[in-house]
C-alpha cells in the first residue's frame, strides 16, 4: 500500500468503515510512514470520542417527558380551538341579532305603510274642482 491509497482509506473512508484486512494493510504502511501515521492517529481519536457516546442512552423518563409536553401542546391547541370557536359563535350571534333587527325594522316599515294606506282619506267628489267635474259630466253625456 502506498501513501495515496492509505490516505484515501483514512481520509475519505474513515477508519471505522474499513475491513479488518484494510486496517491491517494500513497498520503495516504507517509503521514506516510518519505522515500517514498522523492521519491514522487522528482517525483513532475521532473513533474514540464517537465511541464515548455510542453506548450512552437518554434517561428512562425521556419518552414520557416528551409525551407529556406533546399532551400539553394538544391541550393548549384544543383550548385555543375552543376559544376560536367561541369567537366565531359570538360573531354568528351578533350577525343573527343584526339580521333580526333588520327584519324587525323592515316589518315595522312595511306594517306602517299598510296602516297609512288603510287610514288614507277616501276619494271624495268634493275634492274635485269644477273644471274636472265638467269634464266628467261631458264624458257621461256622450
Amino acid at each position, binding site marked *: 500500500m502506498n501513501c495515496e491509497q492509505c490516505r484515501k482509506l483514512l*481520509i*475519505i473512508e*474513515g477508519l*471505522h468503515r474499513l475491513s479488518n484486512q484494510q486496517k491491517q494493510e494500513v497498520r503495516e504502511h504507517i509503521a514506516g510512514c510518519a505522515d500517514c501515521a*498522523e*492521519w491514522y492517529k*487522528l482517525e483513532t*481519536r*475521532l*473513533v*474514540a*470520542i*464517537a*465511541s*464515548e*457516546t*455510542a*453506548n*450512552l*442512552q*437518554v*434517561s428512562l423518563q*425521556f*419518552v414520557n*417527558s*416528551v*409525551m407529556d*409536553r*406533546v*399532551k400539553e*401542546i*394538544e391541550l393548549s391547541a384544543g383550548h385555543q380551538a375552543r376559544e376560536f370557536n367561541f369567537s366565531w359563535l359570538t360573531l354568528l350571534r351578533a350577525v343573527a341579532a343584526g339580521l333580526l333587527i333588520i327584519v324587525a325594522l323592515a316589518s315595522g316599515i312595511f306594517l306602517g305603510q299598510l296602516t297609512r294606506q288603510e287610514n288614507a282619506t277616501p276619494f271624495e267628489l268634493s275634492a274635485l274642482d269644477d273644471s274636472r267635474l265638467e269634464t266628467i259630466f261631458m264624458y257621461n253625456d256622450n
Partner: protein
Amino acid sequence: MYAERNSNKRLNDEDIVTLVLAGRTDLFALLVDRYKDRVFQTCMGFLHNRQEAEDLAQEIFIQVYVSLSGFKRRSAFSTWLYRIVINAALNMLRKKSKIAFVDLTTLNSSHFAMFKNDRDNPEQVLIETEDNSLLKEALDSLPDKQRAAIVLSYFNEMSQKEIAQVLDTTEGAVESLLQRAKKNLRKKLGESRRKNEQ
C-alpha cells in the same frame, strides 16, 4: 392491548406519521422511542455535554411533533428528522456562541470507566482525555457543514450516501467535506499541540 402494542411496533415511520396526523398522537411515542438514542448521540457530537444534549434532544422531538404536518414524504422520515437535528444543534451552538471546553461536567462515565477497565495507568488516561478534549475543541471550530459531516459519519455511523441525503448534497460533496474537515482538524490539533509545548 399487548397485541395492539406489538402491531404498532411493526408500523413503519411513515405509517406512524400518518396515524399521528390523523389524531393518534399517542403513537408519536413510538417514533421518540425509535430515535431517542440516535438523536441524543448526534446532539452529544455537537454539544459534548450529556444534560445539554438530552435537553436539546427533547426540544428536537417537540419541534418534530409540531412540524409533523410539514413532512412532505419527499425523503425518508429519518432523513427529515436528522435535518431537523442538525439545524437545531447548529442553531443552539450559534445562540450560545459556545466556546467549547471540556470541564469536569463533560467527563462522562466512559472517561471514568477507562480507569476501572483495561487501563490501569491514570497518567495515560489523563493524556488521552486531554487529547480528546483538544479534538472536541477542534471539532467545535469547524465550519457548520464540515462539522455536521463528521458528526453524522462518526457519531451516527452514516454512509456518505445517507449523509448526502441529510445535508441535501451529493456524495462527492460529502467526500470533499470530510476531506476538508479532517485536514482542518489535523491543522488545528497541530496548532494546539504547538501552543501547549510553548
